[in-house]
């Protein structure tokens, strides 16, 4: 029982941390702080996975986000006018639209959480080794198409982003 309560406390703590860092993303004017706040929000979610004994998913989340958010940080620094936030520039725009989209997104997420019947909560947790094995089998069977298409989409986005980044330089050289 004490194990269970400790689990709940840690889960709640890192849940709150994830939300808090999510808020920090929009409260700071520094692009680097914003990107790294998003990173720590995602890391907190990774730790939540660990607390829920989904070891592979947790470690993967913690690893992927570190690199992704760092790369995102440099893109934000490249494309924003005041990346350090020291010029006191306001970087937000379309506030009314954002509020509406954010609100509807929150409602949709809550609906997904609350409305469907999730069935029985798992009573026993498979070992971390078994989880990794099950995930591998899942990725190479039923979910293979989804993950391969996701990979291709991300690759396309990467190529596009790189092109956006290098085109102005090519024009300057003319």
């Amino acid at each position, binding site marked *: 029982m004490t194990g269970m309560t400790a689990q709940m406390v840690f889960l709640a703590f890192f849940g709150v941390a994830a939300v808090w860092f999510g808020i920090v993303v929009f409260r700071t004017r520094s692009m*680097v702080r914003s990107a790294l706040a998003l990173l720590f929000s995602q890391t907190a979610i990774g730790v939540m996975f660990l607390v829920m004994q989904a070891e592979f998913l947790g*470690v*993967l989340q913690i690893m992927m986000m570190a690199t992704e958010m760092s790369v995102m940080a440099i893109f934000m620094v490249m494309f924003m006018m005041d990346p350090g936030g020291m010029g006191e520039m306001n970087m937000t725009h379309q506030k009314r639209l954002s509020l509406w989209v954010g609100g509807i997104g929150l409602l949709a997420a809550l609906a997904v959480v609350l409305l469907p019947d999730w069935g029985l909560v798992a009573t026993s947790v498979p070992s971390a080794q078994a989880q990794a094995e099950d995930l591998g089998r899942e990725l190479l069977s039923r979910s293979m198409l989804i993950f391969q298409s996701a990979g291709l989409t991300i690759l396309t986005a990467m190529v596009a982003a790189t092109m956006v980044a290098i085109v102005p330089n090519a024009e300057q050289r003319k």
Partner: protein
Amino acid sequence: MTILIVLLSLAAGAYFLAVIERWAVHGHLSLSGPAWAALALLGRESVLARKPDRLFFETGPVLLLVAGLMAAAVIPLAPGLIITDLATGALFLNAALAYVLVALIMAGWGPNGAYSMIAGWRFLGQFIAYAMLIVMPITAVAMRAESLSTTVIVTSQAQLWNALYQPIGFVLFVIAAIGLAWLPPLDLPDATGELAGGVEAEYTGVRLAVLRLGRLVVILALAGATVTFYLGGWLGPWLPPAAWSAIKTLIVAALMLSAGRYLPRIREERYLALSWKLGVSLALANIFLVGVIALVVPI
């Protein structure tokens, strides 16, 4: 108890590395040198830049040290002598080392100085070069062991070390590790000559001591990872297992540190091109080869 032993061996290893690094950089071997240097750093004034991002400035060095310690936590020194034997140890090692990048970006951005900022972002560029070459060779290692647990990976090499079983992966991993630890010849993020020490440029006193200690721990963790993944970990005749781990790790670390003495520096864009055009292709070939060997001759 285990944690204490591992931490103490880490501290001893870091000191040994500091001695070797001193020799590799300045050319003279001095056993007491690092101790005096550390004392001097602790006593020195901690200078703050004028308008720093204080949060990042303070967090960067500590995060680097934490990342190195986390990585070392999944490296087995002997059977049972490991801080935490995770079922996903090999992946966890990657996760911990990914935060080296975050720490360096923070430490580079924090002081609000041109040199350190350029160095921080430069390390991000270098990261793009080495990242895949850390992960893909480990994939092949895990394929042979049929596990991500570092202890299982060591025992899977009882017949034949991975350095001989998958030499391509071994070479790629060591080069990538040198890049990750920004050691010469891949130390342009640090760029002693050109960026006045790069990320370290604006750090002084205790903070610099933590930053340097963090880097030594990262180097040690990488050497330990190389030994675990490719050189049979604690396996070896006559001597006790822990002794083998220590000897192998220190030799690998010393070789990684001394490489820069004999090789010319490589510009990061050339490193990037080589890593992706040659390195990633070789790493893919390595995964394929290991897969075929594992299926045909199971050893």
